[in-house]
């Protein structure tokens, strides 16, 4: 499977703030890629860099195998995006907005194409109403229509369910799944809600304070049979180094003070035995937190993150 988005060591610094810090990830063709993090974690900044709205301080971005900044126009012709709350021209109708952005995306839309696009998002009855009369949900749907009108290969959705009611959220979810499964689109969706990402994404990345916390297959990461095992040792740094050179390396979770591994509960005794064998002085082994708790703690309240911090 080829990489559609390939990001290496991406960083963005605004004055003294590191909004994104050495971020690397890959989105493969056909993925619905969940991009999870709290508000202010760096999701929107990353997405803006992918769309050339913001220039990276360091790092590289390749999309469709080409460098984004040297092949910008070519790449963006194949990209559709909804960036945060989609704002459109309030004094124009839905139809006029769609026509305008379709032309800016490089196509010459026919009337039937535009009306069909509005039908896909459920706005055919309001095609000629001015956008200023629209609810937030309707604007969101029109934003999706704008993102899809030129039939892009890659769709980037930044918090697409913001401001939607439960029915709207369900509709959005179904649309994303349809785009992926029936139309073969590659989709990157950012959100601060694990529950939403869980239902639609095939792969995901968690970002916190601009840094990658974890990346992987959603099914694997959220496997309920796997637990979060927290280990406290006399010398956590030494213990972490030893574990990184052992068979347990792949299960180690980054970024917290204590050592945490995602693993089957049944493997805990083996872990303890190996730790003793490595002459690591164990103080406690605690498999009380679930993986979901871990992710929730990273993506919601700051207090929960502190609980995991060293």
């Amino acid at each position, binding site marked *: 499977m080829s990489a559609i988005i390939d990001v290496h060591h991406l960083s963005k610094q605004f004055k003294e703030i590191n909004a994104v810090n050495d971020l690397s990830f890959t989105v493969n063709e056909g993925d619905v890629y969940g991009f999870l993090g709290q508000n202010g974690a760096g999701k929107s900044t990353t997405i*803006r860099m992918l769309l050339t709205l*913001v220039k990276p301080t360091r790092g590289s971005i390749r999309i469709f195998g080409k460098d984004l900044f040297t092949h910008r126009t070519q790449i963006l012709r194949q990209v559709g995006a909804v960036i945060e709350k989609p704002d459109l021209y309030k004094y124009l109708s839905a139809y006029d907005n769609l026509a305008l952005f379709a032309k800016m995306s490089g196509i010459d839309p026919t009337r039937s194409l535009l009306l069909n696009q509005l039908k896909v998002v459920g706005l055919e009855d309001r095609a000629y109403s001015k956008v200023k009369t629209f609810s937030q949900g309707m604007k969101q749907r029109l934003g999706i229509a704008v993102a899809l009108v030129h039939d892009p290969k890659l769709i980037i959705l930044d918090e697409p369910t913001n401001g939607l009611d439960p029915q709207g959220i369900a509709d959005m979810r179904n649309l994303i799944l349809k785009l992926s499964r029936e139309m073969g689109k590659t989709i990157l969706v950012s959100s601060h809600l694990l529950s939403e990402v869980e239902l639609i994404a095939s792969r995901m990345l968690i970002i916190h304070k601009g840094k990658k916390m974890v990346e992987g297959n959603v099914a694997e990461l959220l496997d309920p049979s796997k637990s979060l095992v927290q280990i406290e040792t006399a010398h956590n740094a030494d213990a972490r180094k030893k574990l990184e050179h052992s068979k347990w390396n792949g299960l180690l979770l980054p970024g917290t003070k204590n050592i945490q591994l995602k693993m089957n509960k049944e493997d805990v005794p083996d872990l303890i035995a190996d730790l003793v064998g490595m002459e690591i002085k164990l103080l406690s082994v605690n498999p009380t937190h679930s993986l979901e708790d871990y992710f929730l703690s990273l993506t919601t309240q700051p207090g929960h993150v502190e609980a995991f911090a060293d």
Partner: protein
Amino acid sequence: MWKLLQIELYKIFRKPRTYIAFGAIAAFILLIQLALLANGKDYLQFGLGFLDDSFEIPYDKINNGYWICFLVLNLLLIHVPILVALVAGDIVSGEANMGTLRLLVSKPISRTQLVLAKFFAAVTYVIALLAWMALFALVLSIVLFGTGDVVVAKSMEMHQIEKVDVLWRYFAAFGFAALALILVASLSLLLSVLSDNSIGPIVGTVCIIIVCTLISEMQIPLYDKYLRPYLFTTYMLGWKGFFYIAVDGDGQTIRGSVENMPAILKSIGVIVTYTLVFVTASVMVFRKKDILS
């Protein structure tokens, strides 16, 4: 680029705010014409009455369509920059404020092309505004008041231009005014690129023009020497130069002549240079700008 320009023009002319300027100009000119229909002679006497002791002043003949157009331009062209700023100042920052800028910049169009398209859309708006002004100020005045010689009252002298020698000067004057207002649009564009809200660039443009105009007109020797030659507002009245006619050795006007063409050409040069500087700066700033709105 042409398609982009069409889109930008579509956006400008679908916005209700755009028509404020057209309405204001039409109303203002009609008011002046109405006033001069009723009290033209009195108005002229107010200005030239001090010459009544020495000359027979043909007030009725002076109050003709060509002269009224000159009067309108004299009064209006000082204030039209505000109307230009109203649209040009909003052209980028308005999109940022509305939230549409991020969508625009994520489209497969170069930022340079986008800014230039917006600039040329503003230029088109300026030309449309001037054409509208010409329709009311010149055409309608001629219809209502007829044509005649134009008497231009300067602070130290009066110039009289024969009827047959007037029309081409208006074409030249409107052309010059277009350049001056395009300069205002380019300044507004630069401020618009630097801002994320609509009001700042509009107010900023107006304030800069007011302050620079005051310095240009105040006749304080220090400013006249060190500031005035470098202010673009000093040159924006150059359209009037087309109505300052040259005279022969006998002191009689020379038909088809302009008193100081080099000064007008210099003004055009300065205006065009400032415009190029502002537009170039706008492009450079916009290309580097992080779109966070």
